[in-house]
């Protein structure tokens, strides 16, 4: 069981919660069971949503630190270890928001609601195993659009009439 703790490196999880307490995105880099996940979300959104606007962006929580920042109606939260650099994580959050902004063109909560998987893919380009891996906004945008194109091509193929007929008569 010790390996569970060892694996937890860098960022443990990422949460996006709306001001009303609705969860918009969750990404877990450390192993949490489903039940535990819901509990964490409930606990943390209670703490963070109740904090006033002029307070610092860090919350101590279960021996970890949660760094959060509010952008419009959304709270972006990342959980890190005590020794990790809080300001760096704030920069990572900001970085992520900027990339989202560039991708969606002035991003809003609705964009994330309807393109929740895209938000994941972008996050995956930004972080791997809880570590920052890509710090260039341009590169991330390029990679994501290249992948989107791959998907588009495949979709066109799949949705062609002949393909559907082939499926049906198989």
């Amino acid at each position, binding site marked *: 069981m010790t390996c569970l703790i060892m694996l937890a490196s860098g960022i443990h999880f990422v949460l996006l919660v709306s001001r009303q307490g609705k*969860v918009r995105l*969750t990404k877990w880099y450390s192993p949490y069971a*489903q039940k535990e996940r819901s509990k964490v979300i409930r606990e943390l959104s209670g703490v963070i949503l109740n904090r006033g606007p002029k307070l610092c962006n860090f919350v*101590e929580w279960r021996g970890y630190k949660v760094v959060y920042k509010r952008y419009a109606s959304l709270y972006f939260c990342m959980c890190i270890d005590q020794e990790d650099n809080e300001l760096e994580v704030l920069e990572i959050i900001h970085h992520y928001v900027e990339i989202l902004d560039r991708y969606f063109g002035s991003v809003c909560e609705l964009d994330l609601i309807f393109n929740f*998987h895209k938000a994941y893919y972008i996050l995956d380009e930004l972080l*791997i195993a809880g570590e920052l*891996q890509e*710090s260039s906004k341009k590169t991330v945008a390029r990679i994501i659009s290249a992948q989107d194109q*791959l998907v588009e091509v495949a979709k066109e193929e799949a949705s062609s009439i002949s393909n559907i007929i082939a499926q049906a008569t198989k």
Partner: protein
Amino acid sequence: MASSNSLMYSLFQRSLEDLIKGIRLQLHGDSSFISKSLDEIRREIKLTDLSTKSIALQKLSYLAALHGVDMSWAAFHAVEVVSSSRFGDKRIGYHAIAQSFNDQTPVLLLITNQLRKDLNSSNEYEVSLALECLSRVGTDDLARDLTSEVFTLLGSSKAFVRKKAIGVVLRVFDKYPDAVKVCFKRLVENLESSDQHILSAVVGVFCELTTKDPRSYLPLAPEFYKILVDSRNTWVLIKVLKVFAKLASIEPRLAKKVADPICEHMRRNVGKSLLFECIRTVVSGLSDQETALKLAVAKIRDFLVDDDPNLKYLGLHALSIVAPKHLWAVLENKEAVVKALSDEDPNVKLEALHLLMAMVNEDNVSEISRILMNYALKSGPLFCNEVIGSVLLACSRNSYEIVVDFDWYLSLLGEMARIPHCQRGQEIGHQLIDIGMRVKDARPELVRISRALLIDPALLGNQSLHPILSAAAWASGEYVEFSKTSYDIAEALLQPRTSLLPPSIRAIYIHSTFKVLVFSLKAYFSAQESTSSPLVEESTSSVSSPENAFTYKSISSLVNMIELGLCSLSGTLDVEVQERAKNVLGFTGMIKHKIAEEVTAQGSEIEASRAVAFMEDVFSEELCPVSATAQEKFPLPDGLELKENLEDLQEICGEFLKPVVESNSNLFSSSEKISFSVARLRISDQQEASSSSSHPPESASLLAEHRKRHGMYYLSSQKSDDHNDSNGNNNTLNEYPPANEISADSFNPKKKMNQSKPRPVVVKLDEGDDFKMKPDASSNDEPLSRAIQTALMGKGKEKEREKDNHERSLDPGIKEQSSRKEKKTKKKNGEKSSKHRSRRRSDKDAIAAKPVEIVDFLL
């Protein structure tokens, strides 16, 4: 039919967007809609068409991520989707796997081949998907089977792939330490990459690796140093600083070396995150480097006065790291710290509080406590109790080390109890009793404060303060001889509102009343004696002050009050309260007419005073603190297995039974055997006056009898056998080894010179006995660190190393010498990087014997 059905599903399948829209349209809770969608997904995901399947899986992932739906049942379908040739499907599949798989997922073995295929794919995006998946779900088996693929990708020409492969290495090493043999060299080579992203990734990996086991990575210090000096990338530098913070903690010479470049970075106008990392590295690892520390503290000051609450918080945090070693840094910023106490952010307040407590010493404790009590009064319940708790902890540390004036401290405790939000009753009560036992000189004040607490109407209503009342009741009974008017104390203990208290505490009240009564009677009789017989005139007891002088009238009114107060309790349902009340009532009933008789006829006076003297004896035994190590002084009896098989139990209970660390490890020894003594008194109602001095042997014989009957519960010791009472010691606990070796606080003349009142003696046990838990040297990373050390020393040397390990233990001196010689010869060599490389290759043997090696040109 089936195929047409599936066509229906495929054509009219709801997309993820439809699902999201549907959920948003639900006005009255979305649970029924979600369960309906789940049924749909279950049907769709079983179809053969991969694109239908993948959309179903995507919807399921969405529901799992945002609505907490279980998706473990779809594990096999995720594996199916991953095998799709279409990138979009594959991506959905991998995403679902990363989201829902864990080490126990049974179908995990099925993806090995698919992962291998995708890792070898010519499409870099497919490779990247497989790498991301591996970084999340990689198990021991997967890591072992895919090591060679990861190795190939570490050298990929595409930076996009290579940096992800580097990120995955962390997981692979962790699961399969042997992978180090294959991949480590390539990983190290990447440290010299000119691509900032690759560098950032590889430094990130080393940062994590170093955190777990710094010693293994010392030989790489030169590479890290180069990055520290050359790089201008914030992310990279932060990671490198973290690496050095770890390395410097085990190699002090390194601290000296890196101090300069770190100062350089601090002086440069760098981003706040990097600046903070520099500060933290200095205060935590390089605090012996004076210039660096001064610079860091100056930067901390900038943080503290900044308007940004983040910087303020981090500034305070940095101060708290530096505080234990360099208190001056905190004292310099005292003003800012005190100001932060009134910050609106609870986090900032809490940090400030911790810092303030770090500053406390015996000169400023009253000033700081005064400030803090004011804050406690003003702030909300959470912070208020935090404040009270930390004051209690700081003052009680090391047997009240910093408290000089106990009268002041006791009144502070009383003040705390009256703070409206106070919930620290347990600790305050504990300290009241503790001080009563340890500090003789503080007892008069303790009794005064206790009575004031007992009659304070506010305390009775607050349940969390009941422990304080219980302690106050005990103290006022136990130390009643220091009170001015015992009548007032009895009155306080018997006030009608005590019915609000729980029975366990009421029992203490009643028992204390008993003690007060016995004391008063004793004082009354001794006063009578001294007036009646001229012989003992001079020996007017020192305990009874003029206020405590009892006349017949006052003593009988006391007895009447007690009887009145307790008679209603003789019928309560709680047995403890009832029995104690009856004990007291029995005693008063007996003593009452004796007093009355005595006024008329002088004859029975002696009998009555003997009865009281008997009780007085019972109570006169003082309650002492017991050394926490008392148990250790017992020899372990034969046949008692203390360590037998309980380790398993700890494993099971480990989660629930966290060791409770008490601020004070001493237990109370109850040397009072009051309950059975009283019982005896009632039985032998008439004979008891025979001889009060016979009490000690009597109780000892009772104990011996008890021991005979319940011998198996006693610890055997030879000492107890030759135990005798001839030494006139009425200690009923003679059976125990001398646990109370009292060592009084050493008198510190320097400090006491300017104090008008000397510090009272504080009974302190266990001096020098500290229970340091030695950290377990064997870490879980053992296989990994061994593999890494081997990799750093050159390949295939493991066997030799093991052999060397044996040799080393036999003959350390020679190895030491030879490695030193190596160093000298290396110094003459020319160019930097070639130098340490050649060294690494050439002196395999010496290094193998001495795994921790710092490259000499650095130092």
